[in-house]
Structure formats: structure tokens, C-alpha cells
């Protein structure tokens, strides 16, 4: 079964458009706010939404997302509440939703139960930065032939062997990390990106989305030359406590930059 994510990329490809994938932390500072934000993101041209699950030790994240996670944890948000929240969204939107979580909350929830509950809630895929494909066999087996994508990460330091492995394991899209570093770091595109892109395209038809450090419409536009989708997280999370008008304007400028 094709996932909502794959169908979205197919539709965008036909229109020769690229995907705009904003990230927000679920429950930052509460679920009601997240509900409003999902609506705003969709209204401002988001194609897919990446929803962060708060974790006490977000190793791949910089200070902005760490602080957002702490606010969400303080508000009592858990993997359970995030899955329930997605389920409640499904009466009003069909936008593809990916969870970005670390592995321990999933492990504690139980792989099998997680996949079953997330699927029935209408979650379309998962990104787990501290679970490389080498350790994800169980999760991949559970999601095979289901409309639930396992998305893995490649970095500028990835070797040929790693690129092949991640291409084989990724469904929905491949997450290409634009920098060597953590989320929210200033963007300095690694020179490896060009050759990596052609290498990935040579192996796989799976779309590639690029993320980490993209903050301005200009940067989004530049990176969109390489990928099929652009992920913006920290820069949005920083702005969500500002008045809506500015956030909406900013989101629309990102959308326009990606084209």
C-alpha cells in the first residue's frame, strides 16, 4: 500500500514542485497550540508535517529543539498523547504526518504496539535519528507492505556502503542532513552534497528531502536545487511564540522559496 507521503511526492513530481516539510514539536507548550499550528502550516503551503515527539535526551538536536522538548515534557506530552493527537487530527486533515522521535520512547512503548497504534491513528511514517537501519530490522519488518514509512538519515560523511544501506531501508523519502552537526546549526552546505545526490539518484527512486540548518527562504531556495523536499525545523520553532502574522508570512516565504 502506498503511503500518504509517497502519494504526495508523486503528485508534487507531476506538478514539478518540491515538498515543503515544516517541523514542530508536539505539545510545545501544549497540544492545543500544536493543533492550531498544524492548521497554520497547512494553510501556508506545507505538504508534509514532521511532528517532534519530546524526549529528555535529544542527541541530534540543538538548543532550540531541546528547549521545545523540555516545554512539551513539562506540559506532560508523551508518545501516547502525540499518537492520540494525530488520530484526532484525521477528522479534519489528510496532510501526511511523520513522527520524529528518539528510539527509547518507541522501545518503551513496544515496537509492535507503536506501529499498530501509529498506523491506526493515521501517522504516515517515522524518523528515528538514533536508530540506524542496522538496528531497525524489527521496525522495518513490522511496517513492510503497510502505509507507514521508515525514513533514515544520510549525512555528508556517509560512505558509499552507508548510502546503499540507507537507500535500501528508506521508504517515503530519504532524509539528507545538509551539514555535519545538529539541528538549528548555521547552514554551510557541505561540498559533498552534489556528488551524494547523484549517487543516491543512481541507486534509488525514493525522493530525497534535505534538512538541518535551513532558516531563510534564500537558503530553502538554494537547497531545493538538490532535493525533492526541504525540511525546516528550528527556525520555525523559534518563531512560533511570535504573533501569527509574522509566522504565516515567514512560512509563505519559505514555501515560495522552495517553489
Amino acid at each position, binding site marked *: 500500500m502506498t503511503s500518504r507521503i509517497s502519494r504526495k511526492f508523486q503528485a508534487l513530481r507531476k506538478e514539478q514542485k518540491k515538498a515543503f516539510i515544516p517541523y514542530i514539536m508536539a505539545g510545545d507548550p501544549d497540544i492545543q497550540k500544536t493543533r492550531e499550528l498544524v492548521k497554520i502550516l497547512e494553510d501556508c503551503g506545507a505538504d508534509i508535517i514532521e511532528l517532534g515527539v*519530546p*524526549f*529528555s*535526551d535529544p*542527541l*541530534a538536536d*540543538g*538548543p532550540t529543539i*531541546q528547549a521545545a522538548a523540555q516545554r512539551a*515534557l513539562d506540559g506532560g506530552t*508523551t*508518545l*501516547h498523547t502525540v499518537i492520540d493527537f494525530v488520530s484526532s487530527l484525521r477528522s479534519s486533515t489528510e496532510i501526511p504526518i511523520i513522527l520524529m522521535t528518539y*528510539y*527509547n*520512547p*518507541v*522501545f*518503551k*512503548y513496544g515496537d509492535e504496539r507503536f506501529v499498530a497504534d501509529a498506523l491506526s491513528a493515521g501517522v504516515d511514517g517515522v524518523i528515528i535519528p*538514533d536508530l*540506524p537501519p*542496522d538496528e531497525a530490522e524489527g521496525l522495518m519488518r513490522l511496517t513492510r507492505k503497510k502505509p507507514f514509512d521508515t525514513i533514515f538519515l544520510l549525512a555528508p*560523511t*556517509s*560512505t558509499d556502503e*552507508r548510502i546503499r544501506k540507507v537507500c535500501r531501508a528508506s521508504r517515503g523519502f530519504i532524509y539528507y542532513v545538509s*551539514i*555535519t*552537526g*545538529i539541528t538549528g*546549526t548555521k547552514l554551510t552546505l557541505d561540498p559533498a552534497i552534489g556528488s551524494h545526490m547523484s549517487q543516491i539518484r543512481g541507486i534509488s527512486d525514493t525522493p530525497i528531502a534535505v534538512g538541518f540548518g535551513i532558516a531563510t527562504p534564500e537558503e530553502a531556495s538554494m537547497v531545493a536545487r538538490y532535493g525533492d523536499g526541504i525540511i525546516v525545523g528550528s527556525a520555525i520553532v523559534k518563531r512560533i511564540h511570535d504573533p501569527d502574522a509574522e509566522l504565516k508570512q515567514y512560512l509563505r516565504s519559505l514555501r515560495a522559496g522552495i517553489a
Partner: protein
Amino acid sequence: MPALLELEKAYAASKKDKEFLAELAMLQKTYIGRPTPLYFAKRLTADLGGAKLYLKREDLAHTGAHKINNAIGQALLAKKMGKKRLIAETGAGQHGVATATGAALVGLACEIYMGTEDVARQSLNVFRMKLLGATVHEVTIGSKTLKDAINEGLRDWTTNVRTTHYVMGTVFGPHPFPMMVRDFQSVIGREARKQIRDAEGKLPEYLIACVGGGSNAMGLFHAFIDDEVRMVGVEAGGRGIAAGEHAARFAGGSIGVLQGTKSYLLQDDNGNVLGTHSVSAGLDYAAVGPEHAFLRDSGRVQYAYATDDEALAAFEQLSRTEGIIPALESAHALAEAVKLAPKLAKDEIIVVNLSGRGDKDVQHVARIKGVEL
């Protein structure tokens, strides 16, 4: 992942590299001061009135703790791999000092991550690191202790992976760290095994070591795994086994995944890591090395805990009876020996790993006792 695979390969090659091994052996002897003595604690033994107590004197190693064994090994390896910079986390500051020392020795830049709370209780070691030429970054987020120092260290490594080697200080983290750190520390047990045979003509009945991440314990235990020797690892019981009050993972934890390692972890029902407490910064950590988890589940090693108060009592007891001020971490192992020795016969032998010296803790203990220095 590529960095870990590169490290695994380089480490495997170093084990067959005669030049590397010869240099390491030479530095262990002439720089660290190995072998460290195995000392018979006669007065403490008499005080406790049971088994004979021997102390493996890692406190006499250069920089004052066992941490140097691993740091020198990894510094040499990093140099060989062509890295320009060493980074490390530290709790009590001993691993930070050891890494800064290793960096100075082989001529690499060095930056250390340390939680604000640990910076406050281990200020002496912070200054030592600076004297050795390292930059110390205070980690102000999360628990402000060892766990978050590791998070920040790993974030730095992700960012600067091409030029930098991350010197993990304990038997934790993704493979090959737990194996590599154990191997560099296993010199402790190899020496102790020979020394106790020379002294007593037999192996001991018990080994005791404190367990934070668990590197000094793995270092002592590893050479005895196949022997008929009982082993006890001692965790930090803090103020008692209630959430947030201790760091006894085997007493109050469950299996989880943190920092690239699956092991016992102090966590809540949703998989978030719980806060910890221990009087000793080096044991104040929510997870434990995966090989300890294995040794616990297989029943090969028993794990106990000592509370803050028990450790502080042992700290003072050893100081007064033997003239040795132990690190508060090592005092947890001693506290277990104090409980165990009186129950054993006089011809039985306990070897306690005295993993570090207590100079770094003197100010902290004075504060606890309400003494102004």
C-alpha cells in the same frame, strides 16, 4: 555510524600493531606509573574483624585515578588516526583531567564538557584541566551532570567528526566504546591477579568495585571472569531508592536505549530519562555499561548499592585507619567491603578497587560536614 566504523577498524588494527602496543606499554610504566600496588589494608582488616582486605591502588596512578589508563590509550589511537582534537565528557572531573593530560602528552587540542552542577562540586579538577591546556565547557541544560555532558560531547562529535576523536570515559556508548574502554582498563585486573597470587598464593574470594558507567569495575573484573571469584559492583544509592534520589540502575531501572547503548536505565513509563542523585559526581549517571547489564543478567556479577551516608562513613574510615583518602566513588566500593568483610572468614580475601584518590572531594565533603575551609 561511519565514524564508529572507522574507530572500530582503527582500534582493531592497533591491537595487532606492535609499535602501538610497545608505546602504550612504555607509557603505562614510565608515565602512568604502572603497575599500581596491591596494598594489604592491615588496620582496616583488623577493624572489620573478618576477611583480609586488599586495595588495588589506582589512586596512585598518574592524575590520581584509573581514568588515565583509558585516556592515554585513546589519545594514542586518535593521534594514529590523524585526528587533531580530543573531546570528552566528565562527571567527577577525573576523566576530563585524564583526557586533558593525554592530549597534552601527544600534542592534540582538547575540549571537555562538564555539567554545571559537577563544575561546582569539583572545582579543583576544573582548574586542573585548564592548567593542562584544555577548554572546559559548562553544560547548563538537562540534569547539568554527566548524562548531559555526554549528550553535548556527542553533539560536538557529530559536528566535528572529521577532525575530532571523542574520548568516551566509560564502558558506555555505541560499539566499539564499551569494548575498547574495557580493554584499556583491563590492565587493572591483569596486574591484580598476578599481585594477589604473589602475595597470598591464591586468588581472592571477592572483588569489589564501584559502578558509575562501570569502567574501573570492568577493568578489575575482566581478567577474573573465568575464575572462581565472586564479584560485586556497587552503585550509588544516593538518598535511597526513590525516583530522582539515586543512581542504582539495577535496583531501580529497566532496559532502555540511551546514547547509542541498550542497557539498564533509570527512566519513566514513557521512556524519558529520570534525574539522578549521588554524593559522588562520578556515579551520578542514569545508565550503566551494557557489559555490566550482561554480567548481571547472567548472574556472574552481583550488584549492590551504597547510600551517600554509607559512602561518606567509609571515606572517613579509610582515611583514619589507613591514611588513604579515597575518592567518593571508590568509597562506595569500600562501603560494601565494610558490610561484607565481617561476615567472611579470616582466611578469605577481598580485593577492592580503589579507583581514585579523594583530594578532589575534600572541599565537597567539608561542605557536607558544614566545615568552612
